[in-house]
């Protein structure tokens, strides 16, 4: 009985140590990232033949540290210059569900690596792969597709909650 309890506790301890708090301070440095096959923008395939699908998962999915790093890099590489804080501007908004080039992590990765017509530059080979994945993780968090417990409640800098901004302006005109 006692052994069982101890095993129970160990099990609990080991398996609750989740992805959320993982911090990889020395990520795998740099590979030139080409994952064109991984990102699938449409279920339709040329020739109708089902090609073997290469699965890629974001290593930083659900990791609070990497989402925060992604947020920093999003600013540093001036993503916000076009996409603002997810609301869009010159570039399309990122808080949305319908994506032209797909909204799965591998699609976002692919978009960042290759760039897209009409202004989205290609970042592949210029910044390390791990940083792209961090940015992808952050973008997904803006859509609420990361666990709440891994994302920041607010930035320390500016108010980002559009709902609040709306409430406030709405209230002011009242």
């Amino acid at each position, binding site marked *: 009985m006692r052994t069982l309890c101890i095993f129970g506790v160990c099990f609990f301890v080991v398996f609750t140590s989740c992805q959320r708090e993982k911090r990889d*301070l*020395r990520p795998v*440095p740099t590979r*030139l990232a080409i994952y064109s096959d991984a990102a699938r923008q449409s279920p339709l395939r040329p020739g109708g033949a089902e090609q073997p699908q290469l699965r890629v998962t974001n290593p930083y999915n659900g990791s609070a540290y990497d989402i925060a790093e992604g947020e920093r890099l999003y600013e*540093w590489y001036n993503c916000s210059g076009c996409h603002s804080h997810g609301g869009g501007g010159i570039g399309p908004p990122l808080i949305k569900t319908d994506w032209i080039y797909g909204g799965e992590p591998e699609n976002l990765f692919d978009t960042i690596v290759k760039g897209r017509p009409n202004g989205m530059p290609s970042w592949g*080979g*210029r*910044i390390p792969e*791990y940083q792209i994945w961090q940015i992808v993780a952050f973008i997904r968090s803006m859509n609420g597709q990361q666990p709440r417990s891994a994302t920041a409640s607010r930035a*320390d800098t500016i108010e980002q909650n559009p709902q609040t901004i709306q409430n406030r302006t709405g209230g002011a005109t009242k």
Partner: protein
Amino acid sequence: MTKRNGEKGAGLKGAVFCAYAFVLFDACAGHQQSAVDPAGPQSGKIAVLWWFFFGLLTTIFLIVMVFTLLTLTRRGHRSGQEPLNASHLPPGADEKELTRIVAAATIATVLILFVLLIASVSTGKSISELGDKKNGMVIEVTGNQWWWHVRYWNDDPSQMLVTANEIHIPTGRPVMIRGMSQDVIHSFWVPNLHGKRDLIPSRVTTEWIEADQPGIYRGQCAEYCGLQHAHMALWVIAEPQAKFDSWMKHQLRPASPPGGPTGERGKQIFLNSACIYCHSIRGTAAGGQTGPDLTHFGSRRSIAAGTLPNTIGNLGGWITDPQGIKPGTHMATIPVSSEDLQPLLEYIEGLK
């Protein structure tokens, strides 16, 4: 009896410690990051105050210890006095005398503290009067995780110099450090020149420093600021006014063009890489603002805020594996192929 010797041993040990302390304090002299090796009027006044406090407080400590240990010898005289008298109270006369002595000791404590208070406040006041707005120069220091952004203030914007992790100051001239922070709280501390001043986001804090004689002084971030708090150092280089002026003149110039074809190739590699998103080199297209300015990188003493001495080999290590040298740093591991590395290093190191 053996116990008593033991307690006496404590006293002896105290003396040994004091001697040891002096030896170690002595070893501080000539040190590049020491609070008791002043190189300017501010730290000089603080050091004088320190030695005053140190002497007085050590004396007090020794007196208290002597009396504490003497209580043990008195026990020796009285060991035969068991059992106790019923009241558990020594004769009234003794108590009266004790009361007088304790009261006197308390009054003495108050007086000594008054002396220390006055010494402390007057030192503080005289330090705060050292600044000189007319003759002084202003340097803005902005803390970042984990490096220092430095800007020499000038009313003429073209004369404003931006550099990083290294401050040159002229000797004998007061310098005002205007401290700010880009992210979390840091603290600017160059112990040989002055005490520390926190750099707080949303606030501006100021501190006057001054160097008496030429020298190279190390400073370090003193407020815990995250993963690489340990590797956030800076250098303050004090030099005579003329030398400082020529340094300033040189630094204000845009980056020198690369010396040879390898350097030229390195420049192209730099400008085509992601380096430019964070770093700027004046006179080129690189204009990133989030990392240290590299315009005259080659003339600096160290890499990565005092982490490594500035040599071409260290720079190569730093660029290829920053996370190995400074885990958690915000310096990205930019993909550079092995044949591109050497020209790149040559170019950056050539930015004297």
